[in-house]
């Protein structure tokens, strides 16, 4: 792809997202170095536990520069506009799932919440139908894995009824 963009006569624009990526990599490198400095080096010879993090941090630092150059040259691949609302809806579903599991709501309710939000994010509007489908599907999965394969899935009010 590097070649394709450099041949293009269009004026190059600084890619803001690319700048953020480069910055994030630099921050990650700094975190690694800071964390490695907290370790006590107990080894008399060879590598201590802090050596590898520093090596990785140096790599990340170099790559931050590489990504920065790509961003300044506008060398990032072209992107289409994203449907942010739909992405957020799925993330809300994941947050719901984590909350329900965290508060002991059980597997069926948690995964049903994720199912319904995901399906809505993909444009479904028949929420009630989807809730029913989700409950039936996740109950079947729960029964198959918890009872048949004896995996322990977290149980809440609904699971205790089964």
């Amino acid at each position, binding site marked *: 792809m590097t070649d394709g963009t450099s041949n293009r006569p269009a004026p190059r624009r600084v890619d803001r997202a690319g700048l953020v990526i480069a910055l994030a990599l630099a921050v990650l490198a700094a975190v690694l170095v800071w964390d490695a400095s907290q370790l006590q080096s107990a080894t008399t010879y060879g590598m201590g536990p802090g050596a590898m993090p520093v090596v990785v941090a140096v790599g990340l630092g170099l790559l931050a520069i590489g990504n920065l150059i790509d961003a300044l040259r506008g060398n990032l691949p072209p992107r289409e506009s994203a449907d942010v609302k739909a992405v957020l809806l799925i993330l809300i579903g994941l947050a719901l799932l984590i909350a329900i599991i965290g508060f002991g709501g059980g597997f069926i309710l948690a995964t049903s919440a994720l199912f319904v939000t995901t399906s809505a994010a993909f444009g479904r509007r028949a929420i009630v139908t989807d809730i029913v489908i989700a409950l039936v599907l996740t109950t079947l*999965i729960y029964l198959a894995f918890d009872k048949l394969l004896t995996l322990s899935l*977290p149980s809440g009010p609904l699971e205790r009824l089964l």
Partner: protein
Amino acid sequence: METFAALAHGMAVAVQPMNLLYALIGVFLGTAVGVLPGIGPALTVALLLPVTYKLDPGGSLIMFAGIYYGGMYGGSTTAILINTPGESASMATALEGNKMAKAGRGGPALATAAIGSFVAGTLATIGLAFLAPWLVDVAVRFGPEDYFALMCVAFVTVSATFGDSPIRGLTSLFIGLTLGLVGIDKLTGQPRLSFGVPELLDGVEVTTLAVGLFAVGEALYVVSRRHHAEEKLEPVRGSLWMTAQDWKRSWKAWLRGTMFGFPIGALPAGGAEIPTFLSYSTERRLTNYPQEFGKGAIEGVAGPEAANNASAAGTLVPLLTLGLPTSATAAMMLAGFQQYGLNPGPLLFAERPDLVWGLIASLFIANVMLLVLNLPLVGLWVKLLAIPQPWLYAGILVFATMGTIAAKPSVVELSMLAGFGVLGFLMRRFDFPIAPVVVGLILGPIAESQLRRALQISLGDPMTLLQSPMSATLLAIALIALIAPFVMKGLGRFKASED
């Protein structure tokens, strides 16, 4: 001929009724999940790991063999019928196969893919069975410095050499290496990058990372551009069977595809894209029907599909003999071994020959089962493809989170899964490759411990890396492979020029 004896022993393990059943379940589930659009073989293995949690290692690995090949085959069905290859290795198949399906020749396209996969899978598994003992003999002589150097080669080739952008590939790799540092340092017991969170002391689970990046990331990516992409399912019309001419045009392509796929897969060079595209361009050059290429030529399906499967078997060579995963799928297979505390490599061949050879023998059996199952069941696979997108991705996410919930039902672990999902989404959006992250996570800690062991033996003298001829050679290869793409501006560009 120790290979024959070992293989016969493995066959005896594999044909036990329970193990045959495991292989059958594996093949069936692998194909069913692999057929779903957007799910490649690596994710298929990751999603189906929980199914094997409660099995004994032998049965579980045999089921894995089935899942592995089933997932590969399922991916090609998707590529042919809806032109959304779940992975780049199916892209060549999609090129011609989808055109064939549009022209009403979907049946023969699926048939040549299935039979080609069988031929290539069988030949490549024979190659694996004969190459493995020989490589094991070499590998037992490897010192820690040689292993470290070998892993450097794998790091570079997986991330930098063959991708579109070496910078982005290496960035992915280093994100993986960073994640690999999380947790208690095995040699000194000190926590790294754990920030006082007890759940992080065990490190990042490979399955959490893979399912987050592949399943959650893919769902977020697909939903973010649902107004751009349009998927159209081609119905399978007409006969499923190949005509005499189809056979005549296919068989050489299968064999040539195998010749490309197996050696390249067996080298720690990573990825099945290169052999599939080499096979595609070779078939296009050698064909007697050049006018059909781009419009649905059967050789263009037969060759790449064989190459893809042969390289899948090829990647098992470094995985089983050296413990070196060179693709995301192989990394997931390694995770499957590790859940039983098994580490593939020369030691495993010596200590658990029943497991290793049982697995290799099961690959043959899985191949036969795929051939028998797939063509008659094609109607069922097509129905799976017709699941409406909202329910499909909702179901994928339910299944994806279930794996994590079953393994570790903690808020931290699930938050990591969601976080990796966001990471996977961003990486797809900005065209960073995903596989190097998984390989970095799984190989990073192994490479570090080998390096530290080597330096301990040498009393801290880093020259030990250059004094072993094997290690010096491998490091030189790694260096060349790292510099080459910057000098030659992307070896991977031939991909773009093919279509």
